[in-house]
């Protein structure tokens, strides 16, 4: 039984070696030069693809980094806008007629009513 198994294995291996030899002979017949350049071209394509893929990854990483910067700046812009809105409101409160009348009273500014703003012509 074991002997048969050994013989069978040997037979398969010798067949594989023969097939490899035949392929080698075929390649030699068809021209090794062409195959060499084909191989080089294939490697070049692989290299280029790898390069472009890496560039793509780099571009994506950069875009993410820029995205974070944009988000940060937008946050700052938002805060500044909020501050502007609050300050505009405070200006409006302080310049409202009621506030001015009160300020005129409190600080005795002696501001004139509208009808006395213009000098009368004789």
């Amino acid at each position: 039984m074991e002997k048969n198994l050994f013989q069978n294995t040997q037979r398969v291996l010798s067949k594989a070696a023969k097939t490899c030899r035949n392929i080698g002979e075929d390649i030699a017949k068809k021209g090794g030069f062409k195959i060499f350049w084909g191989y080089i071209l294939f490697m070049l394509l692989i290299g280029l693809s790898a390069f472009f893929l890496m560039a793509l990854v780099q571009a994506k990483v950069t875009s993410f980094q820029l995205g974070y910067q944009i988000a940060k700046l937008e946050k700052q812009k938002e805060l500044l806008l909020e501050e502007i809105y609050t300050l505009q409101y405070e200006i409006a409160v302080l310049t409202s007629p009621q506030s001015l009348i009160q300020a005129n009273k409190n600080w005795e500014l002696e501001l004139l009513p509208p009808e006395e703003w213009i000098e009368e012509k004789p």
Partner: protein
Amino acid sequence: MKSLSVYQNEMAQRSLGIFFLIIFAILFLIGRLFWIQVLEHEKYKQQAFQQHWIHKEIPAKRGDILDRNGIILATSIPTYSCYCDPKMIKDVHGAAKKLSPVLEMEEDKLVPFLTHPKRRFVWLKRFLDKETSQKIQSFKIAGVQTIKETKRVYPHGKLASHVLGFTGNEENGLEGVEANFQAELSGENGFQWELKDGRLAKPKIYDPYSPMKKPVNGADIYLTIDHIMQSIVEKELQDAVSRYEAKGACAVLLDAKTAQILALASLPDFDPNDFRSFPRSTWKNKAIADAYELGSVMKPLVVASALSEKLVSMDTTIFCHHGSCKIIPGRTLRDTHGYGDLTVAEILIKSSNIGTTKIGMQMGAKTLCHYLELLNFGKKTGVELPGESPGILKPAHKWTNFTLTSVPMGHEICATPLQMAASYLPIAGDGIYRPPSIVEKVVYPDSKTLHRYQSPDIKKIYSGQTIKEMQQVLRLVVEKGTAQKANIKKVEIAGKTGTAQKLDSTGGYSHEHYISVFVGFAPYKNPTLCALVMVDEPKGAYYGGTVSAPPVANILKQCIFYEKSLIKKYNP
């Protein structure tokens, strides 16, 4: 001992069994994979999406409301609101003790919020300032957080409150311009999907390709109101109400050339920043929402119409029956003083009921009603404010003899104070009726400006001669007639008084409750401003010439000088 063939047979059977077992397992896995990847694809996709992404709403800023000079009358400012998740709070009393002084709430009042049995989101206090929010954050109480919100604020307090209206907590317009221009003011909220990591760490993962929509801020509404003039009008109105302990009052100030509303006030008023603490009745804009029988201010309109129809001239003499006249069967008219023959001009100067009614009767129901319709009585003016009343004007075919003898005196016809003021503009201006307007322009965030103010519906009612004569005679009303208290130095005012009895609970005219009105314009030869003041149920005095004429005079005087100073400032 088993023979080799039996052993081989058993091995073959076992191998076959294991083979099928493996095949079955692979088929099961493929089946399960198909189940998950194909049949339940959407469910798991959604679960994964919810785990990885947060939907963040970006609120649009509500547009501002500004006056004609670009002064902010209503705006939105960022504030912070504090809320809690009661289930996450471990030490309720500790949290209440810390929060109580910051939120200015008693501990006992805070505890029920912090221990709410059903809800997982409970507002503790809204619209806090930034410092308070930072303090609350610094406590690091689990389950207590603050979020940013915007709050609608009105920097001038009560000023123009009836025009501006107010918004609810969610910034939805409920009254005034806020309600009428809700769509324009509110804008469109945006959104952004944010990637999150396993611990929801901040900053979240930024993905430039994540779906987002930028918010579109609301449009700014520029009113025709001038905040200084509005302030002048409100002060004068307040003084009149205090002096005569009146129930209420309202005033309208119009640009005589364009019919733009420069000021519109109503008393009692309210502070839109805190409108809930004022009675609902104060929210009503009496100048547009209530229609009144405004009495003698109707007389100049009747006379002007008769002049236009060439039925009378200013010198035509009319017998006024010495103060009492049975004008139609069952109807006796009275004047406050007895007059014999009066010219048409004198009828206006002395405000004779009998004389004006006779002119009205001479015109007839059809013609008089036609002129009143041209002046827009019985129809809404179309002012850009909610809740406007059209007033009451019966169609000509429904007029009785009683109507014909009532309308010339300002009875059986109801008008809002705004309608009445606008009806004087053809006399004060170029004879053309222009509908009053309160919105000058709407400016969208992309700077596309939509001018709202247009007056396509203009009608020439009176000729130049009629206008000139009416202006002169209304000036005489102030100089020699019923409105002498409006005769002040520096500004030549023309106008007409009105005193109307209010209806009592029985449906008859009251002898205690009056409405005092004065409509005036200035300078009388080339009017730029037209003002109306109506005082409701004044005490002590009730004649329009006593109660309402002085505030109108003060308003016109101050506003004309204010306008001149503006012209001088910007065109030295």
